[in-house]
């Protein structure tokens, strides 16, 4: 149905989509970059800092985009990243 949808839906406030909170265990990271490359919402990017292993672990670029799909958790070969649901009581 080709219709112009330009408004903020009236129920925008009511619809609660779980927001993700990304946790990175920096020193476990070996820097393969899978999480950055394959995040469907492009939440992550490579950080400047070096970890104990001398690689650049990922850092969160825009956490608000995280849909909590947890693909990063699954695809990380090093158990170095995971997501939990953000507590949005105080609003996100």
């Amino acid at each position: 149905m080709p219709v112009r949808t330009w408004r903020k839906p009236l129920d925008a406030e009511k619809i609660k989509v779980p927001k993700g909170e990304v946790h990175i265990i920096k020193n476990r990271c070996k820097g393969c970059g899978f999480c950055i490359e394959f995040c469907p919402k492009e939440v992550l990017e490579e950080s400047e800092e070096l970890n104990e292993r001398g690689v650049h672990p990922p850092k969160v670029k825009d956490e608000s985009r995280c849909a909590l799909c947890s693909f990063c958790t699954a695809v990380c070969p090093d158990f170095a990243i995971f997501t939990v649901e953000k507590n949005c009581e105080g609003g996100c």
Partner: protein
Amino acid sequence: MEELEHPYEKFLRRGRIPHIWCEGCGNGIILSCFAQALNDLNMDLDKVVVVSGIGCIGRVSGYTNTDSYHTTHGRPIAFATGVKLANPELKVVVISGDGDLFAIGGNHFIHAARRNMDLQVICANNFVYGMTGGQHGPTTPLDAWTTTTPYGNIEHTFNLVHLAAACGAVYVARWTALHVRRLTESIKKALQKEGFSFIEVVSPCPELFGRYNRMETGIKMMQWFKEVSEVRHFSDPAKAEITPQKIVVGEFVDIEKPSYSRLLKEMAEKAKTQEQ
């Protein structure tokens, strides 16, 4: 942040992570999917035994927080057979590599499949012998470069899913390390299946396969998987090719057939009644 524990921590042997695997290696992903599967099925870890052979992935048994045994090269299935028959309550999972399971261990694989032994076999197929430095093996693609095929590989490969199906496995699937969700689902299916199930995981080895074949990074290999993999459930495993242009993935076999344990039990009943 750090005080929160990784959701898979309880499936991992305390203090053993980080593991020995290279950057961009798929073995960790396989372990991670296995953990997820155990988690989803809410398995009693005390009743799970992980058995592995020799090779990079062989170390996996040392990382799972279950009873586990790291056997000699090629023998995990034979060892697992003993464990399973001795204590049928146990879920005995063999996680090993393509060289371990199909070169030196090929005999054990085909016969365990033939017997429909109650085992779940997960094979990390990285196309080479990683632990010894990247020599060619039974799954190395034709023409591929390895340290022992400096002029390109002249050996034809095993099609693992076809082999498993032909040998009588009741569940056969192939995924790449990028198909984490589907891989996890397949592992779950296999764990709930009676008899011999086999899952091939096409897994990136950027260090020792990729580097020699114009895919220097894990990402490049995973991108390759993403671009060429094609889901063809229950298509003829004989046609499930792995070529630079196409990797056929999916579930190929899911059938019911009395397992060795079941037949053994029935036979034992008979034996008891026929004592001299």
